[in-house]
Structure formats: C-alpha cells, structure tokens
C-alpha cells in the first residue's frame, strides 16, 4: 500500500535533517529516509567547522544565511550542538600568501561581503599565540567557530521528528519514480508518495540524480581527520592554512582535531575507507612545523567520512532542471557542514514559497543541464 506524505527527503545527513526540520516548521509533514543512521557519514564525522571564511563566492550568501541560524541553533533544535564561536583564522605562512589574502579580502569587500578581515602578524599572534613566529598574518572571520557534528546532526534529526517528520533509518530509498504527479519511493516493504522529493543523499546523491536523467560531474571522496589525546587548553579559534592542507581545532575537552582535506580511499558500497598514512604524516609534519607545542601530543584515532565532491567544488542546490517537484541538495565538496542549517531553511522556502531571498542561483543543477521545465523556477 502506498502511503502519502507531504515531502520525501532522501538522506539523513545534516542537510536532509535540516530540510526536514524546516519543512516541518513550514507546516509540512515530511518523511526522511536514511539508509544507515542520521550522521553516519560525512555529516557526523567531519571536522565540525562552522566557517564562512575562505568560501567560494557563489556560496557565500548561503553561508551567511546559515551563520545567523548557527548563532541561535539552541533555540531551533533545543540543543547547543556544542557550537562555539571563537572565530576561524586563515594563516599566511609567507608574504606571497599574505598578498593573496589581501587581494581576496579586497575582492570580497568589493562585492559587499565584510566577514573576512585581513590581520597582521601581531593580531595573528594575539588570536593564535602558539603559531610559529614566522607567519606574517592572515585572515580572520570572527563570527565563525565550530560545533560537534554528530551531536548537531542528531539534534536536527530529533527536532524534525518532534515536529512531525517521520524518520526511517536503516533502510535505503529504492526505485524512485515520478507517477501521476507524485514521487514514489520504496522503503523496505513500504512505498511512500509525495509531490516533493529532496535528494540530499550525500555521496549517494549523484547516482540518484543520474538515474533521474541529471548526471553531474561528481566523485566520492573521504577526507581524513585525526584527533589527539587531551592536552591543556592552548588555542581558541579554528586555524586553517592558506598554502597547505591543514585545519586545526582544539575542543573544550582538550583534544585537538587535525584535518585539512587529505583523502582516504573510499569503499562506498561497504561504508568503508582505507586511510592513507603517508598523507596523514604530511598533516602531522605541517602541525609539527606550525605548532611546535604539539610535537609530543599523541594521535589517538584517525578516520574519514564518505561524501560527494563536485568537479567545480560548488554544491548542487535547488530545483531539478528536468522534473517537477524534485530538488537537489548535495555535492557540498568537503565544506557542507556549516551550510546545513541555512540550506535547510532556504530549501524549505524554495519548496513552500517557490523562491527565496537568499541568492543561490549560482548553485543550481542548471549549470550542467539547461532547464527543460515549462514554468522556470522563480528564485
């Protein structure tokens, strides 16, 4: 028997959960389908960076929108998500890198964005006292911060459920098809139907899009992270580098997270990754050079989450260019966590109102497939 719902969201990552939550807030009763459990993959195991800093220009409006939600996230989901705002700092390791930073901030200012601020060596040292003394400056985004990704994703899922969303974990969405004005999805032995389908399936979303006739240039990647044992507090902001792959963050409990985008080999069908220790050694080497105090810290665990990376590093976000009632929300290319809360809010606006005040037009799937729909989208 087919059960009718208002919308079907495929994928229980931060994006799917946020969209389900915001659809509930708009008065809809969505259904969320997750093949494993909410936050099992990249959304639950990423670095937790809540970052507007160093973003691609097309996604900055969405990032700013999201930041506003992050700052009141406890009001939204009844859970502080361990969100803390100590800023994020991009470190330039030499004068050439600082020059690139200067040009970037000027470019953003020209576009009307003021969240990134150029800093000199003295301000860098004030914000990050432990950084190597040779670094001449960098960029800070002061409202940025970090959150606990698994806690956050879980909190969004739980709040969505409390507001009336139906959450199905441990079963995949199968045989997705459009018939008689509704999207039909098989979930185990049940079939659900809704006028709206949101494809937020992360590393598995590209296949869903392709099966529906909208292939996009996307690959599955697994960025690696490692974490240390607890060490005394020595740094507040999240630190990323201009020239080398590194992100660096100390949690309140003292552990230090080291990431930056070195990739493991994903085995998507098995939900498994094989780590590349030689690349992680490169991250360790970078930390060794940049934060001498970290040299005797111990690495207690390393891992990688599976996610989708677009060839142009820009997410696919917005209505389908081929099908009524289909929306895409994937391909966040290693920087989707911060966007999650805002993207859910904007997606709900697109679905319910047919448009949004937040500029997301550069993120559409129509950059790969010119729209064939009669009534083009209104955003």
């Amino acid at each position, binding site marked *: 028997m087919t059960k009718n719902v208002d919308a079907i969201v495929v994928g229980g990552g931060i994006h799917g959960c946020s969209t389900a939550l915001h659809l509930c807030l708009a008065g809809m009763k969505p259904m969320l389908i997750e093949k494993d459990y909410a936050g099992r993959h990249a959304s639950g195991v990423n670095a937790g*960076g809540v970052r507007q800093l160093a973003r691609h220009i097309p996604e900055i409006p969405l990032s700013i929108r999201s930041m506003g939600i992050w700052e009141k996230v406890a009001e939204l989901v009844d859970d502080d998500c361990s969100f803390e705002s100590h800023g994020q700092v991009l470190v330039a390791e030499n004068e050439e890198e600082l020059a690139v930073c200067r040009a970037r901030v000027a470019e953003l200012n020209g576009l009307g964005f003021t969240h990134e601020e150029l800093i000199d060596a003295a301000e860098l040292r004030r914000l990050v006292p432990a950084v190597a003394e040779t670094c001449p400056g960098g960029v800070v985004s002061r409202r940025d911060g970090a959150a606990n990704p698994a806690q956050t994703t879980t909190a969004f899922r739980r709040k969505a459920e409390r507001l009336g969303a139906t959450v199905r974990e441990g079963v995949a969405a199968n045989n997705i098809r459009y018939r008689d004005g509704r999207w039909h999805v098989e979930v185990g032995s049940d079939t659900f139907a809704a006028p709206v389908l949101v494809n937020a399936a992360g590393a598995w979303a590209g296949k869903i899009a392709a099966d529906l006739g909208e292939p996009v240039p996307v690959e599955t990647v697994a960025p690696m992270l490692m974490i240390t044992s607890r060490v005394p507090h020595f740094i507040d902001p999240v630190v990323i580098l201009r020239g080398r*792959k590194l992100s660096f963050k100390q949690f309140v*409990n003292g552990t230090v997270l080291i990431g930056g*985008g070195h990739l493991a080999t994903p085995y998507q069908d098995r939900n498994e990754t094989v*780590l590349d220790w030689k690349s992680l050694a490169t991250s*360790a080497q970078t930390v*060794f050079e940049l934060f001498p105090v970290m040299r005797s810290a111990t*690495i*207690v665990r390393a891992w990688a989450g599976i996610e989708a990376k677009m060839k142009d590093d820009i997410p696919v976000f917005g209505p389908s260019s081929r099908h009524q009632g289909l929306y895409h929300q994937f391909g966040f290319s290693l920087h989707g966590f911060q966007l999650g809360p805002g993207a859910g809010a904007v997606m709900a606006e697109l679905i319910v109102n047919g448009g949004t005040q937040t500029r997301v037009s550069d993120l559409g799937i129509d950059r790969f497939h010119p729209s064939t729909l009669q009534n083009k989208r209104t955003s």
Partner: protein
Amino acid sequence: MTLAPKREDYDVVVIGAGPAGLAAAATAAEAGLSTLLLDENMGPGGQVFRAISSTPVTDRNQLGADYWVGADLVQVLRASSAEVIHRATVWSLDRNLEIAASIGGASAFVKANRVIIASGALERPFPIAGWTLPGVMTAGAAQTMLKSSALVPNGRTVIAGQGPLLWLLAAQILRLGGRIDRILDTTERGNYLAALPHAFAFLTSPYFAKGLAMMREVKAKVQVVSGVTELSASGDGQLASVSYVAGRRRETVPADLLLLHQGVVPNVNLAMAAGVEHRWDDLQLCWSPVLDANGNSSVAGIAIAGDGAGIGGANAAVVRGRIAARAAVEALAPASAAKLVPMAQLRTDLAKAERGRVFLDTLFRPARQFRIPSGDTVVCRCEEVTAKDILDAVAIGATGPNQLKAYRRTGMGPCQGRLCGLTVTELMAQARGKTPQEIGYYRLRAPVKPITLAELAAVPKTEADVKAVVRG
C-alpha cells in the same frame, strides 16, 4: 635493542608472539616463507607464557608445567628463519595488508602477502562500583607481575570472580609466598546445572584433573566464599574495603588489593580496524571474528589464530597458529606444505585441545550483574562515563555504541573501547530490548594504539604530499 624490519615485503607477517603467534611464525618460516613476527611485549610468550625467556621464577613447580611448554615453542621459533621484533606495536593494518608498527619511537611500514593476527585475548571488563580505584586490578595484572618480576601481593588481598585463571593465579601467588586473604567466587549456582550436559567432554579433557588439584591446593590455605552475587570496592582515592553479598549475607572486608577476573575475551581492536567482520558469540558473550576452518577472515589475506579467533585456551591457540600458517603456505608455496604436519592431523589436534571448552564456557559464564552495571558505576574508564550516563543518552535517542559517542564520548579515549566496549553493547542491548548483534560495536580506527604526532610527522612521505588545497 631496537631494530626495524629488514625488508619492506614479507610473505607472512604474524602479529603477536603468544602461543598462536609463536607457532604460526615458526611454521611459516619452516616452510621457507619470509616471515616477520611483530610483538608488543619485551619478550616472547604473550600473556600465558609471559616472560618465558626471562622470568626470575626459576623453580619450575611454582609456575607449573603448562607454563614451561612455552619455552619449547620459543626454542622452535628461534631455530627458524623467522625475523622477530619485540616492543613493536602494530598500530595500523588495512585491507591492502599494509602494516604500520611503532618500534623504538619510529614507525615502520611493511606489506604482507598474508597476515596472521595472533593478538590474543584480554580480560573481560568487570565493571563494579569502585573498579577504577587504585588498588583494584585484574587477576591477569597480578599474574603478569608474578611471572615477569616475581612480585606477589603484600597487603590485604582479595581475589574476586571466576574461571580457571583465577585459581591458577591464586595457586601461583601462594607458591611464591604471597598473601591472599579471601577469594570471592562469583560463579552463578545455576551454571553448574547448565554445564552438566557438557561435563563428559570436560572430564576427559586435560583441564579437569589439573583444575581440581589446583582448587584443592588453594582452598587448603585461603578462605573461599562461593555464591557471591554482589560486589563493590570502596575507598577514598585508594581501595580500602571490598563489600559483597553471598547467600543473604552482606559482608565488608578491609583490603589493599582487589584482583578481579571473570574470564577472557578476544582482543578485537586490530582485526576490527582492518575491517574483519565479527559476530556476537552468545555463549562466550563477546565479539568473535567470522572465520573459515583455516582461520581466514572476511578480509582477503588476513587470518586470525589463537584466542583472538574465539577463546580456546593456549593448547588450541598453538594448533590454530599452525593451521593458519599451513594454510598460508598452501596458498603461497604449495610445494613446501609437504614438509609440514598434515592438515588432517592438525584438525585432530585442535579437536582434542578444544575438548571441554563448552563446559568451561557454560560453567564460567559471567553473571549479568557483573557484566551490565547500573547507576554511578563507571563503564568507560578513559572518559569516566557511568552506566546512568549511558542510559540517559539512550533515553534521548542514542541507538548504538557509535551514536553514543556523540552524546558521551564513550570509547573515544586512548583504550578505544577495550575496557568498555562489551559493557556498552550489552547495556544498550538491555536498555533497548535488542540483541547485542543488533546493537553492534564501536567502529574501531587506526591508530589502534596512540602514536605521537612527532612520530607520525617523521614518516616518509610521497610525491602526493603537495596537492591543491582542499578545505575541510
């Protein structure tokens, strides 16, 4: 004595130099395969034959004949061409059979055609109130000190729990002149009846006569309280007393040292981190790898031998080591297999060594209240998370051990769940009305033992070091 592996590639890498690892490495090397044995301890022997080459306890009767069997295994290994490195901590193994080991503060990487994991067992967590107090240790800990340093308990000592090792330890302590004030036997009365149908096999096994003699030896000298159903330790920053209930009687005894033991379970961390499939064993109440008759796991090229393959004891471990190694020889150099003991003979040996195991597993199946704690009893020693904390997290939506990490950080400390994993699985299973198999276990990750950032930074890197910047 710090040495790095001589080669980058080996036919067979054996991990762990206990009974299974010693036998496996000797067998593989005997057949002419290039063989590396990596072991974390200072010398060969694992736990059961710990310090076999160096023990200061030279009176053979004190540690017993079963212990000295290990010396023969070491002799055979030393006569072989196997390369052996001690104080080598394997911290990563993946499905490509790439192994990373920390040796003397530097990491070495080797590749194997076959890996035989012989990482053995560890003592089952015994989460009672006060088990984190200084002065509370495992019985195995005391035995380790006894074998390797001839150390015996000195202050007021209580031993609590059940199982063959407990009686062996007590006998060894007494033989060396150590002190035991009381033994609290937690074996459930009902277990005797349950084990009865398996008694015949046990009666004809080598364990029976030895076990009985040892219990008699201990009971002649120490007060033994049987039927203990409650147990706790207390003290202010140091163990001061042990309380227990036996029959309907509650008693508190002053104590400086409490030694706990309720059996051993496979040490699964390395195998699980490598991706080896495990299943919940309802009889042994632990996770055991899914293996074929030769010890081959779900990951091609990785076999598991010894107690890590499911608890079978030292004799079975030796045979399983030989079987796994023989299977590796048959795969890599079939012509050389003829030199080795035939597989049919090994299978007969294994059946003999495993005789009586079901009886022991049934008789010494630990009681629920000593596996699944409640209230303020600490479950995760590293992150100091209590049973109540975990149940609270379950109540607000934590569905399994991995989701629980987001709420309470259980299993995220340096021990990586070794001392809390089984408890967390069973506790959550009970709370959610599911089976342990349905609840599952922590996803384990390398490094399976922590390494310093400096050590990792010093690892040789490749061309791929400098790539375009991708942000996380």
